[in-house]
């Protein structure tokens, strides 16, 4: 499996990765809309302009079981293989690690023989994951210096603590828990790092028993979902610092550290504030010379007024649509931050050249609980921009509209009609939907995370500026 020269998709720096050729394929996680009727699938979408099947689903591989709930996924290897202290550059970016968030089953797809029809080569059963790590509900996948890092929402019983485990990036064996000392951390969701600062950052959603039957309003109103950021010693695997965003800040989800490894800051999206239903993006940054981290809210997106009739039962009492920031993405030059507002149906673009002072530079309305905004090639849409993925050169944004199956129905009671769209980004900011790229999915399937051929803006990490 080793090669003579490094995989051509590995780049030493984010600056060099931006010069990568444009992707021609996108992989998308497709989950069974009913939850028990058919297997989930990994879809392949043609994203090569000029191709006769541009914007269409050209491949689909069904999983062997029912009820996995595909969600996030990632590559076995990426640009971090070039890191100087743990080099293993002669690997291939070849396998997609695709966990079932509900089943805790982990699938390994080989995309090399036929990139348009990935081949399932390994399935790791939940019992193995539980035996090796006492974790379940695998979520984020990142290729990194020591192998494949994965987060897990809970323990084998579906309660806390969730955490991080390691997989071998050649054999895909579960190597065990990552943490040596977790300190006060109990909730898990996303995790990423500053390789230049030997620091891991992790965020909080809730344990499986708090999410799998749907969002629990009582827990939410009591501020019981996650509201901390955790900072870890990446090398020694020890908890260093917990930073409380405040109990009113419910669900700290996606983490986007600066890609430039010399920059010690990053962004975290918060789904909901209990004070006014607003959503927010927080900046974490180095506070002092001791290696402590501090946070501050840098973006706040207000809820939009609505009438009771326009709202699902969960929201009627509030007479407003919460923006629900469920995903964010940062361009490889650390210049533009994309923020998905799944509730109001908007994707926002901010210039974060000064990370303390983001300036909004773009907006695109699609779907939304009330607005139902249309795409140039569609009628009114439901769902809203949710998973957002960005090409390495920063010129193309891909969006899908499903969040998490049982939560989808709470906010969009009619059920999500899945779609994927692409936006074109102007070099100096601003974005427009590509009128020729609107992909509606089979009603039995809903799209979640998108990964781009060769890497994207949330797949790789770099050791050189």
């Amino acid at each position, binding site marked *: 499996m080793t090669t003579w020269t490094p995989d051509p998709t*590995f780049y030493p720096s984010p600056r060099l990765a931006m010069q990568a050729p444009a992707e021609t394929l996108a992989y998308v996680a497709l989950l069974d809309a009913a939850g028990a009727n058919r297997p989930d699938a990994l879809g392949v979408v043609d994203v090569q302009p000029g191709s006769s099947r541009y914007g269409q689903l050209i491949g689909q591989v069904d999983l062997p079981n029912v009820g996995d709930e595909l969600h996030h996924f990632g590559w076995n290897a990426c640009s971090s293989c070039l890191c100087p202290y*743990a080099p293993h550059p002669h690997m291939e970016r070849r396998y997609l690690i695709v966990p079932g968030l509900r089943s805790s089953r982990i699938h390994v797809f080989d995309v090399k023989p036929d990139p348009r029809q990935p081949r399932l080569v390994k399935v790791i059963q939940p019992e193995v994951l539980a035996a090796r790590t006492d974790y379940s509900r695998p979520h984020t996948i990142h290729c990194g210096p020591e192998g494949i890092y994965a987060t897990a929402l809970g323990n084998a019983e579906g309660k806390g603590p969730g955490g991080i485990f390691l997989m071998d990036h050649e054999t895909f064996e579960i190597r065990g828990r990552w943490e040596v000392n977790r300190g006060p951390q109990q909730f898990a969701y996303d995790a990423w790092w500053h390789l230049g600062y030997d620091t891991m950052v992790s965020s909080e959603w809730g344990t499986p028993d708090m999410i799998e039957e749907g969002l629990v309003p009582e827990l939410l109103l009591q501020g019981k979902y996650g509201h901390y950021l955790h900072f870890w010693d990446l090398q020694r695997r020890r908890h260093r610092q917990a930073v409380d965003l405040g109990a009113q800040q419910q669900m700290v989800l996606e983490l986007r550290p600066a890609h430039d490894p010399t920059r010690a800051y990053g962004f975290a999206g918060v789904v909901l504030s209990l004070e006014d239903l607003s959503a927010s993006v927080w900046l974490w940054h180095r506070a002092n010379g001791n290696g402590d981290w501090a946070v501050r809210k840098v973006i706040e997106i207000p809820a939009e007024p609505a009438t009771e009739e326009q709202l699902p039962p969960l929201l009627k009492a509030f007479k407003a649509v919460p923006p629900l920031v469920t995903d964010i993405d940062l361009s490889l030059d650390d210049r533009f931050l994309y923020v998905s507002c799944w509730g109001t149906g908007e994707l926002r673009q901010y210039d974060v050249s000064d990370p303390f002072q983001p300036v909004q530079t773009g907006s695109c309305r699609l779907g939304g609980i009330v607005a139902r905004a249309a795409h140039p090639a569609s009628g009114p849409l439901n769902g809203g921009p949710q998973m957002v993925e960005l090409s390495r050169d920063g010129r193309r944004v891909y969006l899908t509209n499903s969040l998490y199956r049982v939560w989808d129905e709470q906010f969009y009671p009619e059920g999500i009609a899945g779609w994927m769209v692409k936006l074109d980004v102007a070099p100096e900011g601003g974005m427009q939907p590509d009128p020729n790229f609107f992909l509606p999915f089979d009603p039995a399937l809903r799209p979640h995370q998108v990964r781009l051929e060769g890497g994207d803006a949330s797949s790789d990490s770099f050791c050189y500026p």
Partner: protein
Amino acid sequence: MGELWPWIAMLGLGAFHGINPAMGWLFAVALGLHRGQRQVVLLSLIPLALGHALAIGATLAVVALVGRMLDPGILGVGAGVLLIGWGGYHAVRGHRYRLQVGMQTGMAGLLLWSFVMALAHGAGLMLLPVFMAWLDSQQGHLSAASFPTLLLAVAGVAVHTLAMFTVAGVSAVAAYEWVGLAVLRHGWVNLDWLWSAALIGVGVVLLVTF
């Protein structure tokens, strides 16, 4: 002592380690880029070279100690088998060593890292044929009386390390100042393959010779 080939081998192997990005110069460049200081590049190479020298010295010292107790023929065959085994192991697992040393490490961490990398590569083992040739010229016994052999060994490690340091320094400065790291994308060839093959090849030569 009169023969030149052991010195050329010492120099050549040092240069080979020096040019290998995985043996240190790339780490030095990364630290220089991260701190934004070119002197960090060269300063970092010092503990990296020292760690390498210590690993080789330790290997040779162990062999010298064992060599005192063994017949030279057995030592030769043992070294051959060890080299072949190490080459095989290196081919399969050689790129997988992990230390708790990252981008925030200091000089001691770099020294430790380089020491472990050199041990793991079998850098000292590769020098065994040279070392044993010197032992042989002293009738195969490293005892208190064979001071010249010890001196030769120290000089050999010094030459080897100096060659490594020089080539690593030139590579690091060239990458940092002029070439840029894009060269890694195509230029970072799989030296691990060459190295594994060399370990096995030298092991076979030893087996045949002894």
